[in-house]
């Protein structure tokens, strides 16, 4: 008997997802654990594995379909020896009506205004397919590049909708970032400039929803502290001469924060209506900017890992995050977050909490500053850090205690080495 394959819940919070890509096609043999499809959940693109073996009989949900509910049937799985005719006998549950049209219909997430007026004599076929590939002649591509023409906005009139030179004649110039935009677009007073509309990805929607909620609902306050990091930099330099994979300042800061959290467990906690949870290990989330949006992969039990271990893990997680390949378990959870904008030259900033965590540490750039030591004006490499605290959980004194502990580890980095692993 053919069996229905259902949309799986690929993260604890997933209610629906976008069936981004089928990796098996009808007729393919499927073994348990084979990757069937890529599904975009609320946080990431996740590979969906086959729960059973058989042959992929019929795909019910097309690639690019958004809003596929968990447990909705997405395909028929045939048993070995069955052929597609078995599907006729199977009681076909109607395929779920997709909530929205497949992405092909509206072209990958970008819509330009003002729209070029399509000429009546030209067939209306978008040159961009769902996978974002644009069919255009080499000449059309080059001129579009030179003159800032957005090819995603042009209906191709060539064979199979290919964009050719004649299609560019009436296209707006300078809309896309070209190498030169010779023509200025004239606007009447009060008219907005032309814009690109990027429909919200799942990850963007989740960021918006969660950050709005935490900003509105959680009473927060901010504590800032300056740390001198010359000793840390010297240690890092020395360590980096011994290892192949270089350690970053952030790797040290993750370790320092984790150890400080174990010392001040009140900061390693979260609010729940019934009780406050104090965690016994420091799972440090690190904020990673990706072109899909911000995501926070977790280094579990960072307090029990060496800086070298943290560095390797952080690097792997960041790469996966940028590729959109994080598995849910790699970015869910976490008891404390570090957000570091130092590499962008930001001196100091306040972060918004990563719920339900009670604290997030915003790390600025290490920079030489004038400091007074023993009554003498001197120079030191200083780094400003700001802790955002959920006041329902963490009082000012607790936050200050955590920062003091953190600062101690940072300024006397040998302490990080003395602390033995084993809390996790």
């Amino acid at each position, binding site marked *: 008997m053919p069996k229905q394959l259902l949309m799986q819940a690929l993260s604890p919070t997933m209610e629906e997802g976008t069936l981004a890509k089928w990796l098996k096609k009808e007729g393919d043999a499927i073994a348990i654990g084979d990757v069937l499809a890529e599904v975009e959940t609320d946080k990431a693109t996740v590979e969906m594995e086959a729960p059973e073996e058989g042959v992929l009989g019929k795909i019910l949900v097309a690639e690019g379909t958004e809003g596929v509910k968990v447990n909705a049937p997405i395909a028929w799985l045939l048993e070995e020896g069955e052929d597609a005719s078995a599907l006729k006998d199977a009681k076909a549950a109607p395929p779920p009506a997709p909530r929205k049209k497949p992405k092909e219909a509206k072209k990958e997430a970008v819509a330009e205004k003002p729209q070029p007026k399509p000429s009546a004599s*030209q*067939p209306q076929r978008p040159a961009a397919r769902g996978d974002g590939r644009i069919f255009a*002649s*080499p*000449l*059309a591509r*080059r*001129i579009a590049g*030179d003159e800032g023409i957005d090819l995603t906005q042009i209906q191709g*009139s060539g*064979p199979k909708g290919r964009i*050719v*030179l*004649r299609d560019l004649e009436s296209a707006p110039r300078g809309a896309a970032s070209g190498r030169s935009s010779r023509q200025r677009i004239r606007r009447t007073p009060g008219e907005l400039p032309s814009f690109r509309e990027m429909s919200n990805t799942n990850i963007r929607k989740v960021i918006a929803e969660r950050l709005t909620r935490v900003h509105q609902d959680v009473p927060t306050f901010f504590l800032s502290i300056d740390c001198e990091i010359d000793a840390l930099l010297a240690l890092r330099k020395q360590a980096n001469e011994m290892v192949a994979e270089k350690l970053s300042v952030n790797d040290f800061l993750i370790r320092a924060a984790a150890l400080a959290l174990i010392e001040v467990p009140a900061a390693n906690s979260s609010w729940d209506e019934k009780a406050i949870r104090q965690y016994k290990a420091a799972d440090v989330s690190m904020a990673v900017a990706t072109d899909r949006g911000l995501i926070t992969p977790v280094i579990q039990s960072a307090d029990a890992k060496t800086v070298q271990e943290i560095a390797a893990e952080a690097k792997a997680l960041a790469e996966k995050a940028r590729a959109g390949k994080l598995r849910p378990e790699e970015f869910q959870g976490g008891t404390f977050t570090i957000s570091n904008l130092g590499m962008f030259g930001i001196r100091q900033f306040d972060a918004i909490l990563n719920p339900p965590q009670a604290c997030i540490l915003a790390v600025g750039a290490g920079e030489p500053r004038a400091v007074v030591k023993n009554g003498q004006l001197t120079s030191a490499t200083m780094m400003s850090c700001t802790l955002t605290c959920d006041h329902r959980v963490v009082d000012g004194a607790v936050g200050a205690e955590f920062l003091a502990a953190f600062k101690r580890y940072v300024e006397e980095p040998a302490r990080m080495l003395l602390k033995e692993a084993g809390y996790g």
Partner: protein
Amino acid sequence: MADPKYDLVIIGSGPGGYVAAVRASQLGLKTAIVEEKHLGGICLNWGCIPTKALLRCAEIHHLLHHLDEFGFSAKDVGFDIGKIVARSRAVADQLSKGVGYLMKKNKIDILEGRGRLAGKGKVAIEQAKKKVGEVEAKHIILATGARARTLPGLEPDGKKIWTYMEAMVPESFPKSLLVIGSGAIGIEFASFYRNLGAEVTVVEILDRILPVEDAEISKLAQKAFEKQGIRIRTQASVENLKATQTGVTATVKTGDREEEVEAERAILAVGITGNVEDIGLEGTKVKVEKGHVVVNEWLATDEPGVYAIGDLVGPPWLAHKASHEGVVCVEKIAGVKGVHPLDVTRVPGCTYSMPQVASVGFTEEAAKKAGREVRVGRFPYRGNGKAIALGEAEGLVKTVFDKKTGELLGAHILGAEATEMIQGYMIARTLETTEADLIEAIFPHPTLSEMLHESVLDAYDRVIHF
């Protein structure tokens, strides 16, 4: 009104008409084609094809007279003009029959006779000036072609003063020939007769031969022909053309200089004019200007339901242009989506002389005139291994690119197999490749086609073999 019997009736079965008919049939239109003389029109019967058969003979003659270069010897090599002409006719007949087969295969009715518009949606069929029938059609395509143009004082007599038609079927081989006009037709005949040994004089009123070609190519072609012994007079006119007892005489005026020319025969090749007469245009809204029917980009005349294609609507007078127009016109009638008007800058032009000339797109001069900044590439045949091996080291491949966008604006070839090679550039231009794609392309060695690559490389200062 009763239902028209045909969706489409095409008057004329040349390369415009018969191709349109086949395409119409493919698109499900019930189609008839009206032909007065020979299926296939001038192209098959009196133009492209039989002249290529003749020029093949000229090529063989040329090789036979250069056998020594290749290590051969032969004595008493001669030719029989009667046999050469007979072969040319046989080739034409074979192909004309082929068109008949194509019509049958595509269930296209052939209506024998002269077609004439006979009121809205009607075509009268006449044989020997008498009406023998009438058909009704929703759409009518005029594809009646063109004929040699005559000018006052330059009128053919069919005996000593020929048009291309008589020139194709000489009864005897003329020892001397005066060719008036140096377009493709004039040059092909000049080349054919010169190769077989005639004394040939070509007179061109403009400042260079093959005036539609790139000026540089014209100049090189002229040199090549003069080297073969063809006398060429440019910026010259022919006056007092007269048939005499033995041949023709004429005065060729070049500026202030006048020379008397005597020849056995003269060929008038001063352009062509559309066959607009006697096809029932009177009383319709079909407009005629300068001997050609006026049409819009979709080949529609001002008379609803009446279209015109090919030589009848004007230059370039090329069979493949007529065929393409036939397809565009029929597809538009049938409501096919994504049809585009013909772009003349994508129509290649070919002259099958020795050496051959072929081109597509803008000449260097036309490109500059159109306001383009250009990059020009050149590669001579003498830099190409295959050309030298063939003994065909004379010629040039020239390319014209838009300096800014890399668009291949035009390409011009003079030399062996130019007409077979131009398609590479035609495809490049049609697909809108830039120099980048052409530079990246890998050409087979050793071939003449490598020169297509080298010319592009030269335009970007990267030529390898020269």
